[in-house]
Structure formats: C-alpha cells, structure tokens
C-alpha cells in the first residue's frame, strides 16, 4: 500500500514543503530511499527500523520504497525520520494514512523511539504556513522557538509512540498555546546595563548617538578603558525588536542550531574572536551555514582588537555591510542570508596600548604606531561613521561618592526609540530607515543646514582637513544629533558636536 506524509525541508533559511511517499509491497525484504537523499537521510532507514521495533510496532518484512518528492532538490538532515516512520506505519496499515497528508511532521528519532530536535525548524514551519499548512507535529524541543507562530496548530510530541497514538486518534496532544509577541518582548532586560558603566560621559553620549542613527562606531582606547563593556551595552539601548525582526533573527539562529529559549527577543550581540576565519564570519562551509555576521542580523557585531583581525577577513565584511545580505555559493548549495547589523569595533591606539593616554607613557615609535593603524584598510574605515577615544577612568573617579548615578539602559532606549521613529517617518518609502544609511545625494536636502551651520562646516573642513567622505559622515551624524534634540534643521552646534567624532578619526588616519 502507498502512504504519503507531509513534511518540509530547507536550503539555508529558505524552507519548502515536500512529501515523503512510502510504498510497502510483498517481495524480498529491502528498504530503498530515493529522491536525492544525503547520507543523514539514508541512515534514517536504520534509525527508523530500530525505533519502530523498540516502540512496539512491527517493521514490515516487505519491499519498502521511500521517495522524497520533489525529487530534484537535494535533501539534507535527519529530520525526515519521523515522517518516514509514520509513513511506514500508515503504508503497513498500522496507522490511518489520510491524516498524514494534512499534518506536517518532522523530527529525528533515536533508537529507543524518542524524538529529537531539528535544526532550523522555524524557517521550515514559516514556509509551510505560507503554503497553507494548518497543523504540524514536531519534537517538543523545537516547540519554544516556534511558539510565536500564529495561524498554524503546533503539536509537540516526545516519542514516536505518542506521535502514532495521536495519528490514530487514541491520544490527544494539546496544541501549543500561541505566545503573543507583545507579551514576551515586554520584560526584556539588557544583558549589560548602562548603569553599571561608571564615568565615560563622552563615550556614553557617543553610544547613544550611534544607537539613535544606526551609525557604525569605532572605539579607540587604552587597555582597561571600558571599550568592551561599552560595546556590550549597545544592544540594550537599541529599539526593541519588532516581531518581524525577531522572527528573521530567530530563523538564522534556528538554522545555526543555537536556539534554546524560544523566539529571540533581545537584539543579538555577536563578538567573534580575532582568530575567526573569513568563512566563520561571513558564512559558508560545505553546507553554506550562516556566519557570525548573519547571527548578528538586526543586532550588533562587535570586533574587539580590530587590527588583529586578518586583513582578508575584514575585507570580506565590506560587501555585506553595503548590501545587508550575504550570498554564499557552494557546489551543492547557494544561500542568501540577511546580515543587517550595526558594527562596533574596538582597538588599542598603538601596539603597547598607551598612545594618547594621560597616565601611562607610550613606548612605541611613530613608525610602529603607523604600521599598527594601517592594518585597517581605508574602505573599511569609510564605512565607520564615528570614532570615539576613551581613556581609563581613574579609580578614585569610579568610587567617588559625588558621581551621580548613571542612567540605565531602559531610559536611554526610550529616547533612542523616539529618534528612530522620527527617522522611520522621514525615510518612509525610501528604501532605508536610519540616518547612517542616508545616501550622499540626499544629504543636503535631509540635513537642511542653517547659515551658521554652513559656516561651521566650512571651518571644520578647513581646520580638520576633512575629506569629502568625512564631510558626508559629519552631516549624517549631525542629522542624528539634531533629531535627538528634536530639531528639524541642523544648526552649527550639531555640526560642531558631530565633528568631534570625526576629528579624532582624521587625527589617526590622515
């Protein structure tokens, strides 16, 4: 008899629905899997055979043909175990076949018949929902990441036996209660709160500007000046993720197999070590897996010790930073992963780390400093809007009782959200959404400089020897600063402050 089970697969983050067809007929006992299965799919014969027996079912001693259709797509991964097992049950009349055609099933099996989790369940279910599937049976471990999906009934199962009983109608499984996104996003606490950062008033202000306008940020400072700490505060003051953003990000993490706690509601913070390879950063490998930049999608990519990164790794960042997506082509896979992240980098000012410090003497020659700085290419620097210098805070400053309590992330975030809303309104229908993405030809119109602002800008260009790129960057930051002040026109004061984040850059890289 022939049975068809509904299931789904994916390539990268693109899911698709497919069918597992099982045919059981008299003949020499053998099992054939066709439809471009990879090794993991072919191995599922052995897992299914043992799991069926250990769950108290009989594995038919007959000629079994399993076809994965559409046949032209290469099938990867072990999550066809459950549909294959249920298909065999249905084809050998141990379970009803009709229900299996409507109910999407996926899950891996262990030999004792228990169900195991699937990598990338969320993108697969998203695709299934889009194609009109209304019910799915999935391993309990994947339930949390998918719970925010509405419009599709999700039945979590623990064992093959339970799944079969559900199919037969012998046992009811309660569908997952749908979680409303607004409820779970409410009580998101930042990983590191700004209130734990002492002093560094200028750097805090810079971080808020960067968050408000989506500007990439480079922190230059001596060892122990709090660069890493500051960077870790950034996700906490960015606006809360929208449901769409949360889904996009969770999908990528789901494919990478590191979703444990359900839908990601905190903006991701990805901090690859400087020994990371280009492939690990950008994505790739045999299966074209997402890299760190995609895991930082809608969040923050933090590169600490920037000059220590191999040049070729940093160069690989340029295209994704422009496009917001990265396309990875391999012999047997071609995937497009979103990678829209805010870049924040940190570095020492020189090899010994003390150049420019007030308290410690630098013992590097100018040549050594130059060589260290020149490890970062101009094109990458061009994509970094703001440069902020930090110096270590004196211990007595940290513990001083007079120091006012620092503001916490939540109140800063409230301001940032307001400024972002302003930009969303202004750039509606323009294809970008924040000041950092403001293209050069729209700059003048969007900034609307006052007369004094024009004069100050001209003075800046002359005194700070700004390049044309530097000029555009100052304008973008000034626009953000004006937005933060709630002003429609950019004034001289805004330009002057914006120039302070650019001036230092020109000082290091002439």
């Amino acid at each position, binding site marked *: 008899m022939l049975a068809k089970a509904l299931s789904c697969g994916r390539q990268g983050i693109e899911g698709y629905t497919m069918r597992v067809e099982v045919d059981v007929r008299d003949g020499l006992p053998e099992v054939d899997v066709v439809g471009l299965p990879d090794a993991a799919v072919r191995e599922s014969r052995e897992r299914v055979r043992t799991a069926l027996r250990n769950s108290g079912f009989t594995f038919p001693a007959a000629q079994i043909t399993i076809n994965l259709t559409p046949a032209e797509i290469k099938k990867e991964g072990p999550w066809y175990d459950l549909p294959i097992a249920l298909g065999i049950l249905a084809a050998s009349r141990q379970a009803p076949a009709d229900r299996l055609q409507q109910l999407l099933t996926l899950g891996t099996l262990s030999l004792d018949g228990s169900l195991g989790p699937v990598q990338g369940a969320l993108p697969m279910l998203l695709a299934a929902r889009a194609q009109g599937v209304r019910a799915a049976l999935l391993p309990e471990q994947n339930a949390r990441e998918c719970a925010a999906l509405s419009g599709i009934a999700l039945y979590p199962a623990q064992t093959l036996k339970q799944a079969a009983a559900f199919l037969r109608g012998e046992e009811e499984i309660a569908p997952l209660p749908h979680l409303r996104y607004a409820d779970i996003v409410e009580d998101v606490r930042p990983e590191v709160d700004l209130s734990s950062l002492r002093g560094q*008033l200028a750097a805090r202000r810079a971080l808020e500007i960067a968050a408000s306008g989506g500007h990439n940020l480079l922190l230059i400072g001596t060892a122990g000046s709090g660069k890493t700490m500051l960077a870790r505060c950034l996700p906490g003051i960015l606006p809360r993720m929208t449901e769409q953003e949360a889904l996009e990000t969770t999908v990528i993490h789901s494919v990478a197999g590191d979703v444990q706690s359900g839908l990601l509601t905190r903006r991701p913070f990805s901090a690859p070590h400087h020994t990371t390879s280009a492939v690990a950063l950008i994505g790739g490998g045999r299966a074209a897996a997402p890299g760190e930049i995609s895991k930082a999608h809608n969040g923050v990519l933090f590169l600490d010790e920037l000059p220590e990164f191999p040049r070729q790794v940093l160069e690989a960042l340029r295209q994704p930073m422009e496009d917001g997506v990265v396309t990875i082509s391999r012999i047997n896979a071609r995937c497009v992963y979103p990678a829209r992240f805010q870049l924040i980098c940190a570095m020492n000012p020189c090899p010994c780390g003390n150049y420019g410090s007030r308290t410690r003497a630098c013992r590097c020659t*100018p040549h050594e400093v130059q060589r260290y700085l020149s490890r970062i290419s101009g094109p990458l620097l061009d994509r970094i809007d703001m440069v902020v210098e930090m110096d270590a805070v004196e211990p007595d400053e940290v513990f001083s009782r007079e120091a006012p309590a620092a503001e916490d992330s939540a109140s800063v975030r409230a301001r940032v959200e307001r400024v972002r809303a302003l930009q969303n309104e202004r750039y509606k229908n323009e294809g970008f959404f924040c000041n950092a993405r403001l293209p050069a030809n729209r700059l003048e119109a969007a900034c609307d400089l006052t007369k004094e602002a024009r004069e100050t800008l001209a003075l800046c260009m002359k005194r700070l020897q700004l390049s044309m790129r530097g000029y555009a960057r100052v304008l973008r930051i000034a626009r953000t600063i004006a937005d933060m002040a709630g002003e429609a026109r950019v004034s001289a004061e805004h330009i002057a402050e914006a120039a*302070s984040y650019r001036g230092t850059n020109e000082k290091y890289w002439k």
Partner: protein
Amino acid sequence: MTREDMVWIWLSRVRGLGPGRARQLVEHFGGEEKLLAASEAELREKVGGVLAGNIWQAKNAEEIRQHVRGAWHCGQKIMTPASPEYPEALREIYDPPCALYYRGDVSLLRERGVTLIGSRRHTQYGARVTAQFSRELAQAGLVIVSGLAEGLGAIAHRAALDACGKTIAVLGNGLDVAYPAMLRPLQEEIAQKGLLLSECPPGTRAGRGTLLPRNRLLAALSEATIVTEAGEKSGTMHVVELAADYGREVLAVPGNIDSPASIGVNRLLRNGAAFALGSADVLEALGLAAEEGETAQETARASLSEEEKLVLEALALEPLSFDEIAARTKLSVSKLNSLLTMLELKGIIDQAAARVYATKS
C-alpha cells in the same frame, strides 16, 4: 663647476680621508690649485703611503665629472667650500664637508635659522610644543633647520611648511633615499618649498656612520639649537653637545620632571641651557624682538560666549579630561562636545591626549 670645486669633490671621494683631514691638506699645500699640482711623493710625505695612494687613485677628472653628472641626473647639485653659496657657518667648524649635495632653494642658507630638534619617540606634549615653536618661529621669518627624522623632526618640518615658512632638512643619507620611507612625501615637499641638504652622495643609505656626522651640520648651520623633548640617551643630545662646542645658543623646553621623555631636556636646563618657554625666548636669544600687539589668539578670545569662557576657566590651570570638564562646568555632554570642538576650531584649545583638553598658550 670650477676647478676648485672639482678638487673638493675629488677629496670627498677618497676612501679614508675625512673632511677635517681634507681641509688640512688643502691648507698645507696653500690652496686647491697647488694641491692639484702636487706630486704623489709630496702627498706621501704629508699623509703617509696608503692614504696618498688612495688620493692619487681617486684623481681622475673623467670619473669626477661623471659623478657630478650622476648627481645632476638625480636632481641634485653639489656645493663645496670653494663655491660662493657654501654656508659661512660651516666654514667656521673644524671639519666642514668637502661636498654638500642639495635640492631646493639654496638661498635659505643665507638667512637666519634655528635648529629645532627632539627625539623620535615623543609624547603628545612634545608634538604639540614642537609644532608650536616651529610655526611661530617660521612665521617670525626664521628658517627651521631639522633632521627629517620620524617623530619630532618631521613634525617641526611639517609645521613650518604649513605656516608657509622656510625649512631646511639635513639628511644622513643620499637625497634620493627616503629614510624612513614613510617620510618620502614630506621630503619631496621640502625639496620643492625648502632645501634638502646632505653630505652623502646619491644612493647612500642611512647608518650610524652617516647619521652621526650629520649631527655636526645640524648644530653648525644655525645660530641656535632648540630642544623640545629628549630622553636620557638620544641623538638629540649629541647635536646639543656639538652646538655648545661650536658656540651656538642652546635652548631647551622644560618638561614634567617625572616624564621619561623629558629627562634629557630637563638635565640640559640644570646644566645651564637657556629656558625656551615660548618662541619669544628664542627670538630674544637671537636678538630679535618679539612682535608686540594683539595676537590672533587674543582677538579670538575676545569674542567668546559665556559658556565658552566657562570652559576656558576650567582649563586655566591644567589639562582636563572630558569627564572632568563636564563635572566642573556642569554643562550637558552634548553642549560640551560642541563647545570643545568650536574652541578647537577657533584654535584656542587643543587635545593634549585622548579626550584631554588644554588651552594653547
């Protein structure tokens, strides 16, 4: 190129014959012409067999002409003690160079100049002070002489050029060689707008044997030597010793007593060097009066807003970090950010270190 010049170039190319000995030789024979006429036996009598042999061997008019042509092809000209443009200041010393290769405006050698030197490794204070002295002295019309070394030397040249002033770089390598390579653009700019000078023929690489003799030119060429920053052991101190030997003025800019980069200058001051607390001190030492009247600084200060004055008041005593200024002035961070940039743009304050601000004197 006169015959006298040719004699000096000939002597400059003899192995084992230093500039001091060469001058003695010319004086002994009573002039370049007489030396040219001397026989090998007469030479041997004066300087001994080996050196006389070397001198005799190098006496080849065609080879010397070719050398001059070679230098000319590199864009370099040669002057010798027999040339009218040869600086008088160098004739005063015991061992004036037999041949000086140069590119650029040779008339700068006739003008009054000061040597501005400091160590390669420097603090931001050193950089700031060096640039300030160089700028102000260049604007006062003096020629800034330095060694085109990385660090403070390069800063001195740069500041002089930026102030549209005149500058001479004395190199310890061939003028077609850039050492360090990253200063090549600056070297080229000095060749265009100032003067490059070297005792080394084209193609010579810098080394101990060329950099040390170079120091005597730095010391001798100008009327006064100013040291802005120097550590305990430094080539800078060598120049200072020579300058004192030649009877030139030596001025030093004091630094913090606990700063390793200023140990050398502070010791100079203890040993009797003159204090250079500003360019006026240097001008005074040279017998020039500092220009009176309101400077651009003062004009700029007169038109400040109340808030800007508040910031300057806070900075009056010592450089402060951003956080410290914020704490003292009670201004908001955004306001302070733009105020500091504006003051920087107006040239009233300067960043002494990362986010540490100081008033310019």
